[in-house]
């Protein structure tokens, strides 16, 4: 997945300036930067969820396997590019129905197929053992960390090629965070992952490549080790060493 000369506007305000970024398949890419730098906006253009905001507008191109995402049907694009949000957002339905929702809206109807998919998704998200006896209970009864893993399982149930995560651990404690990071490692063999995070240690722990955003521009994009140990730009060094941000 690749963005080419991407400019993004909220009405008159330009939130992204000329972003060129190549997201490598089956790797974890982290996007870091101070609040309001555009990293979440960038993430939300990749599955075109930003289109739901009135006045949103962009120029440039985003390519998925070389094909423009703008020219694709938006619902099939979002099936291929899944998303997990900052605040866990389980639907007010049972655990089972939450996971089965994506496959259902994408045309899976047979109960047996849905059961297999739900179990597989929950197992991959390491949630199966915790919820297997209460699949019909409301998802809201789960703890915060479990809810977020449920949302990841829900996104994984449609088997997306790319999974976008928008600060998925910002409301979670260190143990729940660790579980989600382990989960990301376990799915990266089959899924390309892009994670926006405020937590630089998290980026250093999980990401193969890291992009540093500031004021709507991509300042630097490189291997994670390089970004943290030997950045080429002064702004990046200042940010990752905690001099500001």
């Amino acid at each position, binding site marked *: 997945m690749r963005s080419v000369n991407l400019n993004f506007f909220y009405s008159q305000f330009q939130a992204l300036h000329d972003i060129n970024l190549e997201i490598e398949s089956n790797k974890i890419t982290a996007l870091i930067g101070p609040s309001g730098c555009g990293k979440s906006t960038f993430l939300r253009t990749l599955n075109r969820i930003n289109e739901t905001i009135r006045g949103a507008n962009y120029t440039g191109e985003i390519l998925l396997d070389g094909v423009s995402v703008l020219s694709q049907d938006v619902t099939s694009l979002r099936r291929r590019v899944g998303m997990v949000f900052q605040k866990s957002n389980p639907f007010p339905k049972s655990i089972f129905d939450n996971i089965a*929702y*994506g496959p259902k809206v994408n045309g899976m109807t047979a109960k047996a197929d849905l059961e297999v998919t739900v179990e597989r998704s929950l197992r991959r998200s390491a949630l199966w053992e915790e919820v297997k006896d209460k699949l019909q209970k409301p998802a809201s009864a789960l703890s915060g960390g479990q809810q977020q893993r449920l949302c990841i399982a829900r*996104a994984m149930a449609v088997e997306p090629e790319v999974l976008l995560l928008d600060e998925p651990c910002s409301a979670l404690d260190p143990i729940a965070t660790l579980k989600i990071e382990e989960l990301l490692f376990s799915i990266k063999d089959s899924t390309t992952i892009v994670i926006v995070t405020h937590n630089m240690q998290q980026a250093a722990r999980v990401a193969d490549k890291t992009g540093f955003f500031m004021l709507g521009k991509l300042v630097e994009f490189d291997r994670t080790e390089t970004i943290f140990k030997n950045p080429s730009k002064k702004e990046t060094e200042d940010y990752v060493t905690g001099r500001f941000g």
Partner: protein
Amino acid sequence: MTMSPRTRWRYAVNNVMLTLTALCTISTISILFFILGYLVVNGISSFDLAFFTQLPKAPGESGGGMANAIIGSALMVGLASLIGIPVGFLGGIYLAEYDGGWFSNAVRYAADLLNGIPSIVLGIVAWNLLVVPMKSFSAWAGGVALSLILIPIIVRSTEQFLRAVPNSLREGALALGANKATTTLTVIVPAARRGILTGIILGVARIAGETAPLLFTSLNNQFWTTSLGQPTASLPVMIFTHAISPYDDWHRQAWAAGLVLLTIVLLANITARFVVSRNVG
């Protein structure tokens, strides 16, 4: 411990305000209980099985009932619901989920205006639209008149409860590849279903007690209604005609009808409260 004059003044003000608010609360509740009690005292003697099964008796004869008015009311409220619930519900979805700028604002404003129009005016409108061309008072016209009251109530309550659903749920469903219509029908409406249902129950209870729009449209009928094209009895109009009559028997019947109507509306309100207070599952 001695209190300073300032502290004593604060305590005094506090006590006066507490007394005032308590008096206002008591007077509000006591009006409801006064009405209930008054209806029970005056209407209970006519409140018997015959009231629910028999036709009204001519003046001078005691006994009889208002079965035709109960059925008539149910018919017209049912008709109004058949028109008003789908239109109001879908209109509410449009306003909340498909905000189309100036047009949505115009619809919203129109719904609020319609809500504020005196119900007797809506009765005249239905009279002009249906009674005049059909050359007959009818249950159709009564149902349409009531639906004009019901639609804006349901539009606005549905919109309000849909708007209260967090946006994160919309994005969550869209991000899984659901389109807008699927998202609305399978996630957003179910998330708001209790609120929407409550709005519908309260709206229907409200039109069950409306009198003015029926005076010009369904008129009244001392006998059973055999077709929706006929003048049709209803509890509110029956209360009106019986109450202004000079006969004591009819007055008692009117009290009993008031008691029945109030009981129905109270039950609807309690049901609505029960629906909304249960935890979201």
